[in-house]
C-alpha cells in the first residue's frame, strides 16, 4: 500500500465531504469573524489600542477557529465507527496523520486568507507590500497549531469530554507558537525593521519542524494499542 496514496485519498475524502456540505469552511469563517467582532468590542477602548491589540485578537481568533475545525476533523470519523475502520486497515499510521494534517491545514489557511482583507478594513491596516512575509507568518503559525492539533484531536476524540479536552490540552502547548505569531505579526504591522521580529519567525519555523516530526512519530501510538 502506497504511503502517499493513502494521504491523497484521505485528503480527497475530507475535501469531497467538505465540498458537499460546505460545513467547515463557511462555518469556521463566520465563527472567526464573530470572534473578532466580539473581541474588538470587549477590548477596544479606542482606535489606537484596537490597532495595538489587533495581532493578539487575530491570532486568538485563528487559534479558536482552528480548534473548532480540528475538533470536527476527527469527530467526523466517529460517525458509523469510521475511526475504528481506519484503525483496522493495513495503512501506515503516519499516512493517516499526514492526510488529516493536510486537510486541516488547508481548511484553516483558506479561512485565514478570506479573513485577512477584513482585518485590513476593520483595523485600517496598511500592509500591501508586506503580504508575502505576512503569508509566511500565517503559514508558519497555522502549521504550528495544526501539527499538534491534529495529533491531539485524534487523541481526544476517543475519550469522554472531548469537546473540552482538545483546547485544554492543546492551548498550553501552543503558547509559544501564539507568542511567536503575535510578536511577528505585530512587528510586521508596526513596520519595525525585520531584524527585530525575525527571531520570532525563526522560532515559529523551529516549532513547526519539531512539532510535526514528533507528532508524526507518536501518532502511531494514538491509533494503535
Amino acid at each position: 500500500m502506497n504511503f502517499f496514496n493513502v494521504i491523497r485519498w484521505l485528503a480527497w475524502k475530507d475535501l469531497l465531504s467538505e465540498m458537499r456540505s460546505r460545513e467547515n469552511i463557511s462555518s469556521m469563517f463566520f465563527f472567526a469573524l464573530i470572534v473578532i467582532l466580539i473581541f474588538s468590542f470587549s477590548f477596544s477602548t479606542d482606535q489606537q489600542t484596537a490597532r495595538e491589540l489587533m495581532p493578539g485578537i487575530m491570532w486568538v481568533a485563528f487559534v479558536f477557529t482552528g480548534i473548532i475545525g480540528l475538533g470536527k476533523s476527527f469527530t467526523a470519523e466517529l460517525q458509523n465507527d469510521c475511526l475504528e475502520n481506519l484503525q483496522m486497515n493495513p495503512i501506515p499510521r503516519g499516512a493517516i496523520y499526514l492526510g488529516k494534517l493536510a486537510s486541516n491545514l488547508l481548511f484553516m489557511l483558506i479561512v485565514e486568507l478570506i479573513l485577512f482583507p477584513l482585518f485590513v478594513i476593520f483595523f485600517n491596516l496598511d500592509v500591501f507590500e508586506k503580504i508575502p512575509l505576512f503569508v509566511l507568518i500565517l503559514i508558519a503559525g497555522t502549521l504550528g497549531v495544526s501539527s499538534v492539533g491534529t495529533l491531539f484531536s485524534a487523541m481526544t476524540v476517543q475519550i469522554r469530554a472531548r469537546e473540552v479536552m482538545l483546547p485544554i490540552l492543546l492551548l498550553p502547548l501552543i503558547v509559544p507558537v501564539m507568542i511567536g505569531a503575535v510578536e511577528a505579526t505585530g512587528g510586521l504591522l508596526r513596520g519595525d525593521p525585520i531584524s527585530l521580529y525575525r527571531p520570532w519567525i525563526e522560532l515559529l519555523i523551529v516549532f513547526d519542524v519539531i512539532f510535526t516530526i514528533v507528532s508524526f512519530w507518536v501518532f502511531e501510538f494514538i491509533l494503535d494499542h
Partner: protein
Amino acid sequence: MSGIRGIQLSQSYRHYQVLKDVSFEVAQGECYALFGPNGAGKTTLLKLLATLQKPSSGRFEMMGHDGIRDRNRVREFLLMIAHGSYLYGELDAVENIRFALALRGLSPDAREIKTALDRVGIGAFADFKIRYFSEGMKKRLSIAKAILIRPKVLLMDEPYSSLDERGMKLMNQFIRESTGQGASVLMTSHNRVQSAEVAGKAGVLFQGTLRDIAVKDLAAAHELF
C-alpha cells in the same frame, strides 16, 4: 495453517472479567458461528481479533501471523462487518466504496462497483448520500464492499441484524462464496436458523468460556445456554 486461531484469550474490564482463556480455531474455508447470551462478550471477542483492542492476556494468529505483534500484517487479511457501518455520511455509495478499497490499495473500475451494488440490491441508490440510507441499506452496502475486497478473514458481528429476508439470503450466499474461496469467517449471531445454513462449526460463549457445539444442534429446538 488455520485462518484464525485464538489461544487462551482473556479480557478484563475494570470491574469484571468478560473472557476467560478462550481458545478456538477457524480453518480456511470454514465458517464459525458464535452464540451466547446478551452481554456474554461476543462483540468483545471480535474487537480483540480485529486488532481494535489488546487482550488482557493470551494471543491469536491469523493466517499464521501473530495478531498482536504482526498486527499490520494481519490487518491486510481481515475485514470486519459490525454494527457501525464504517461509511461517511456525506459521500455517496460509490465514493464510499472507492475510499474503502483505496485504503487497501485496490481501485475497482466503475463497472465492478456497479455490479456489486446491483447484486446487493441497492444499485438504484448508487449516487445517494449515505446519510439518507436506512439501517438495512447500509448493511447491504457493507456486503458490497466485502464482495469487492474479498478478505481472507471475515469477522462479522450479528450479520443478519437489520437485514430483510432477501438480505439475509444474500448474506449467506456471500458467506458461502467466501468460504468457497478459502476465507475464514467468524460470526456472532442470535439467529440460529440462518447461521445453521452456512456454519461449519459453532460455539457458545457463556460465562466467559467458549464451548464447541455441533452444527446440527443449531437446528434442534433445545436451548443453547
